[in-house]
């Protein structure tokens, strides 16, 4: 018996050209982008940069025309892994391109697609995820925010929290209860597209422990959402959310979030001969190479239209462990303190990643929740 199957995939021919295009684009547009800034990578919000990526046709590449250019999932993979390895500021479009767009393509109406996809693909309209609430984190099915029927639409009341970049995004795709009560759990949930400029919405940034304002509290006070903004079917929200999370869990963002610290760490040993560093860096490299091939293998399966949910979850679990290992090894090898304000490139990168990496095993499903998902896949639950 084999629990699940991931087999090596080969990249399609011709991707080297695309890869080189992305590299020279990055060199031209972000040549002087500082090393510590690069360590922030997909947490850094830069609307202008996202717009440029859109101009190049590198957002929504896999989507069918007229929204995208029907490129393969592996080609998109090449683009995003190059962005992440460089440490480009991709947060503005990240969620929309990675999951909201694909969600709308799969479940959205023609009207929604016409109205929203061009904005995502051009890097001009940004999305956030409205799932978590103050009393519903891992237990997402227990959410309280509800939408009541009102003529040709819905009236939403409640509160979302931890919504990354809600203060800068145009739309939220919110999971809300449209019927029944909290006791009904997965039944009666739906997804609504909410225009964050609509009346009745209060967005308050929450300072995180690094001092950045990325996530927010979002309150809904009788916010009207028209019927045309319901995604997919009423009551099918849970299934849609599960499908959406599969897009989220296997990409290169799942193991490259701390890559820039690894680069700075390697740089510290330039022209030295240090046995411990050689062993530790060799080991990290082996992990990186393996994770990348696992993640590519999942991308290849996604391309066939299958849903490798468990495999994707495995990658997130291993990927996060790898990312969190990097600052640990840095401390093992080098006797300097992280310093975010006045440090060297290395010290600043360490300072940021050291703090940020604790959140990697929380967002997108905690490690514990992921392991339970894997265990279910193994037939243990």
């Amino acid at each position: 018996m084999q629990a699940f199957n991931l087999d090596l995939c080969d990249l399609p021919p011709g991707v080297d050209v695309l890869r080189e295009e992305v590299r020279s684009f990055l060199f031209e547009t972000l040549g002087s982008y500082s090393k510590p800034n690069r360590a922030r990578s997909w947490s850094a919000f830069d609307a202008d940069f996202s717009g440029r990526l859109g101009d190049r046709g590198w957002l929504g590449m896999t989507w069918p025309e007229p929204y995208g250019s029907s490129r393969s999932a592996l080609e998109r993979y090449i683009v995003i892994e190059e962005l992440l390895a460089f440490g480009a500021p991709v947060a503005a479009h990240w969620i929309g391109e990675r999951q909201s767009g694909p969600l709308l393509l799969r479940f959205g109406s023609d009207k929604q697609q016409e109205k929203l996809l061009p904005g995502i693909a051009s890097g001009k309209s940004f999305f956030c995820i409205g799932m978590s609430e103050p009393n519903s984190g891992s237990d997402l099915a227990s959410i309280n925010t509800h939408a009541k029927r009102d003529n040709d639409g819905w009236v939403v009341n409640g509160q979302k929290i931890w919504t990354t970049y809600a203060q800068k995004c145009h739309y939220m795709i919110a999971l809300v209860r449209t019927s029944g009560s909290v006791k009904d759990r997965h039944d009666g949930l739906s997804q609504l597209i909410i225009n964050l400029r609509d009346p009745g919405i209060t967005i308050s940034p929450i300072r995180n422990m690094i001092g950045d304002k990325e996530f927010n509290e979002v309150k809904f006070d009788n916010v009207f959402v028209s019927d045309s903004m319901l995604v997919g079917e009423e009551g099918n929200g849970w299934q849609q959310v599960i499908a959406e999370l599969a897009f989220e869990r296997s990409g290169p963002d799942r193991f490259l979030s701390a890559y820039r610290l690894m680069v700075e760490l390697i740089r510290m040993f330039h022209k030295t001969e240090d046995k411990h560093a050689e062993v530790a860096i060799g080991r990290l490299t082996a992990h990186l190479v393996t994770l990348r091939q696992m993640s590519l293998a999942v991308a290849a399966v996604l391309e066939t239209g299958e849903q490798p949910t468990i495999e994707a979850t495995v990658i997130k679990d291993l990927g996060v462990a790898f990312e969190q290992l990097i600052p640990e090894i840095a401390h093992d090898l080098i006797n300097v303190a992280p310093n975010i304000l006045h440090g060297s490139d290395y010290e600043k990168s360490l300072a940021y990643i050291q703090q940020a990496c604790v959140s990697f095993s929380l967002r997108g499903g905690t490690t514990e929740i992921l392991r339970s998902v894997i265990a279910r896949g193994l037939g243990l639950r």
Partner: protein
Amino acid sequence: MTEISKTLAETCDRLFSNLINNDVLRETELAVWPDPIWQQIEENGLTFAMVNENHGGSGIKWIDCFQIIYWSGYYSVPVPLVETMVSSWFLSQHNQAPPKGVITFFCDGKPLDLIESNNSYKISGIIERIPWGASADYVLAEAYNSNKQVYVLLDAKKSKIVKDKNISGESRDSMTFDKASPLTVIDISDAFRSNSLLVYAALARSVQMSGGISAILDNCISYSREREQFGQPIAKFQAIQHQLAILAAEAAAAKIASQIACRAADLIDVSSGLEFEVATAKIRAGESAGLAASIGHQVHGAIGFTDEYSLHYITRRLWSWRSEYGSESYWARRIGKEVIAGGADNLWADITARL
């Protein structure tokens, strides 16, 4: 997966599960050579799977033969199938027709002495920890003198044997040669620098480990569903579930890592470097092996610590294989050195160019 891979996987899964059981494993640990098993394996053409067609083999690629080696690890096949496969392939690759029979190899220590006289060669010296040296017909070994490095194929029966074992009871014998005449001499001084036999031996052990790790996972899944405590199968406890989730992730990583190296072995010719991919495989599979063995024993409780129960046949092999042909630290240092020397900003380009 290719069709050949699928066929090989099914064949080997079936063949090995029929051939191998606890009794067989116990007896072979007492140094009984399981000849009927060897015969069946040879008859199925597995030893010659990778050998070129013009030498009577099947010319199957590494990425497909992955399956044979993986399943041999999964079932703890207690004969030197892998050593024979790799040696035969290596000979064939260097235009030497491999002989039939058991071929073992030596590639991780001080080479044998190569003595040149009157345009012929003699081989002397002692080599240690040779897999199934006592049962082998031939040994493919490194030999050298001050101006030449070669591989020689020797008649194993012409050596003086001292028997020994690794901790899983697989035979690891020492062989002493005294002016033996080599059957074949391959002069590949260059290959000592890049893809020596050591690289392929390490690759093979990585694949075997990935098979063994998957076997532990499967054992743990079925055992945890059967074993009841506190009135329910232990599989229902979240602590157990999470340990097995970790194990499953490690099994997947070890498998992909060793496939990476197999694919590279097909793409890269013997004269250019394969060590990066093999190091990745050996490091990753070795780490996973350690974790898998610990989790495997933890989940099984006391029964797993008994001689009677089969778990230790796999876990003891994993601990042995992990340190054979270069431990994790050995390989990590080899590639870590290169990564550092290559420069921090070039790592990503190097990784994406190779794979």
